[in-house]
């Protein structure tokens, strides 16, 4: 290695050192500690007591844990699907050559940068069964909307609908993907007599597959970690309908003196997310196309 290279390498390490230090102290260290605590009975106030896999066994046999797991799977599966479909449709619309299109794009992006807590408070009002905006709009079509957040059957769909408010970033990512598709492909397809559906099916969708894959992964992880909405809007209710995995984890850690179980939950979630991500990567080989050839 030349001396210039050496100097560059040292400078790089020195510049990155604070971040590396931060990573070890504030990320890796606590992560390792939490792995240990997950095998202990730990209240934070008292010293941890090693109990092996008891926390994991207790969680699997706990009703509320199962409820929270079901709720989270429900919210994630429908939430991710609706995020992908809606953001793709909106991105296609926002990809048109219209006057003032950048204003429309901004309008769709702004909600995603407003704080989630503020969004949650506003949506509590929107979803109000009696005076809420959603039911007001539904009433124009003669539909009597449900008592969204007050009804255990509708509380989860309500959170999914609310989630669509923050899909601005997915829209922008899709837009970038759409603008990366060479126009010649569409022109060639038109020459061959392809219609809108055929162009979408054989050009847009395959070439957007890496983008869709990215959104699928990030959105899945984000949905598994849903916390603010139940914390601010429903406190896990009504009747545990919105008790999400991470909200239960928070209650166990900071309300019920079960930091050991909370750590076990965190690790179970981590493993689940890793497994799901690996599965998604495995299956992606069949539908994600990275190159135009």
């Amino acid at each position, binding site marked *: 290695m030349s001396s210039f290279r050496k100097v560059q390498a040292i400078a790089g390490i020195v510049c990155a050192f604070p971040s590396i230090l931060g990573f070890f102290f504030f990320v890796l260290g606590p992560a390792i500690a939490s792995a240990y605590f997950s095998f202990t009975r730990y209240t934070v*106030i008292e010293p941890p007591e090693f109990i092996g896999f008891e926390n994991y066994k207790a969680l699997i046999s706990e*009703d509320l844990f199962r409820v929270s797991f079901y709720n989270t799977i429900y919210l994630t599966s429908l939430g991710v699907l609706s995020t992908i479909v809606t953001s793709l449709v909106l991105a296609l619309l926002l990809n048109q050559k219209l006057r003032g299109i950048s204003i429309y794009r901004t309008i769709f992006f702004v909600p995603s940068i407003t704080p989630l807590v503020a969004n949650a408070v506003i949506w509590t*009002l929107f979803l109000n069964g009696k005076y809420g905006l959603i039911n007001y709009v539904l009433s124009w079509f003669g539909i009597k909307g449900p*008592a969204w957040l*007050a009804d255990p059957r509708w509380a989860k769909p309500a959170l999914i609908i609310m989630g669509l408010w923050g899909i601005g970033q997915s829209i922008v990512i899709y837009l970038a993907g759409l603008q990366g598709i060479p126009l010649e492909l569409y022109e060639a397809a038109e020459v061959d007599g392809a219609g809108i559906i055929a162009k979408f099916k054989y050009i847009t969708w395959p070439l957007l597959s890496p983008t869709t894959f990215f959104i699928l992964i990030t959105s899945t992880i984000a949905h598994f970690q849903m916390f603010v909405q139940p914390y601010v809007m429903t406190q896990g209710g009504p*009747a545990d309908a919105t008790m999400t995995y991470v909200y239960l984890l928070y*209650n166990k850690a900071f309300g019920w003196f079960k930091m050991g179980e909370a750590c076990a939950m965190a690790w179970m979630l981590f493993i689940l997310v890793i497994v799901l991500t690996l599965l998604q990567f495995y299956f992606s080989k069949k539908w994600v196309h990275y190159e135009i050839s």
Partner: protein
Amino acid sequence: MTFRRFFVMVLIFILISSTAYGKTVIRWWGIVGGPQGEALKAIANKYMKLNPEVTIEMREGTLGLTDVAAFLAAISAKQTPELIYWDRFTVAEFAARGAFMPLDDFIASSKFIKTKDMYTYALKEASFKGHIYAVPQDAATHGLAININHYKEAGLDPSKPPKDFEEFIVYAKKLTKYDDKGNIIRCGIEASEYFNDPTPLVVLMKSVGADWVSIDGKKCTLNDPKIVNALDAIVRLCDTLGGRQKLQDFISAQEVMAGISYFATGLSSQYYRGGLWLLAQIKRVKPELAKDVKVFPSPPMPGGKPKAFMGGFSFVIPAGTPMDKAKEAFKFIEFCMSPENILEYEKASTKIIPYHSAINLTKKELEAKPQDFFAPHLWKDFLDLIRIGAPRTPTPFNFLIYSELKRAVDNATYHKMSPKEALDQAAAVIQKNLDEFYRKEK
């Protein structure tokens, strides 16, 4: 920036730092918001003026029921404050785990704070296994607040409140108004108090002498038939008024007025567990309502006796606080509880100090200077209720018990489970935790 400017700034910094040097600093956490918090801050500022060598650093946030994460983090980092204002309801569960310092010796030598002077319920909530871990600071006397005009409008006699909860259900139905689509537009009950936390259920169980744990504290008795009956009564109350969803819809429609009760805005006719704090809300949003309000003991279960629990805050000193700092903190606690500060605090916060001497002082002041109190007639009514105060039994799991009771109320009122099944489930969760706790203690 010139060198001279930089030098001047450094000098100023050194001067500011040196003024704090040599001072005793008491870090005081848990200052609540609103008028209560302002009243506490005023007392602290007064103390610092009188004792310039002491600095009280105040940190806001409700500790005891919410925001405990900060305290737990402080314990982990061994950086606990010297003093905390703590919800009395969960003192025992932190004391049971060694988080608080026993205050028996401090209290024994105190000038103003005497255990004999404390109301029994407050002392019981502040104690665990024979030691006192908290100095009760305030209480909210609770009872049934009724809207006289609504009573008259519904053909009910406001001087004859419901004698028991069964009659309360009948009154609630008569007082509830619906629109032509069947939506509730004015509610006969303060619906949120039944679902946001399970306190009416707790009052009802106390009225028939039931409790959530056995006397030795080791057996969970949440599925006691008396408590099952009480939950069943709450389910019938809900169903009579149109069902949980309809009530919940009414509640969420009013959440625009976050933190303000519907009773204070005239949208509900009876507050089962109304408290003195209600006066602060009425004063803020509808002062003219005060003359149309009357207060009675909350109606018990049939055959029971009216009871009320008087939630409130207390002072605690975290375990591990150096003794000299703990002494300084306790001096400040004594100052807060001294007669010169009691009345000022009560008037500003609309809460009472649960000590016999303090209540006598308040009663005298109320007679001598009624104009100093907002709605003095209601102050009198609420002060009278302190005689029926009952403690919320201290256990190592009160917060969890409340969470499980809330779930039980949800499950029963949404008809996901029968009251018995809902309470059996809650009892099983609590029992498992109690068994684990006492097995570990052995």
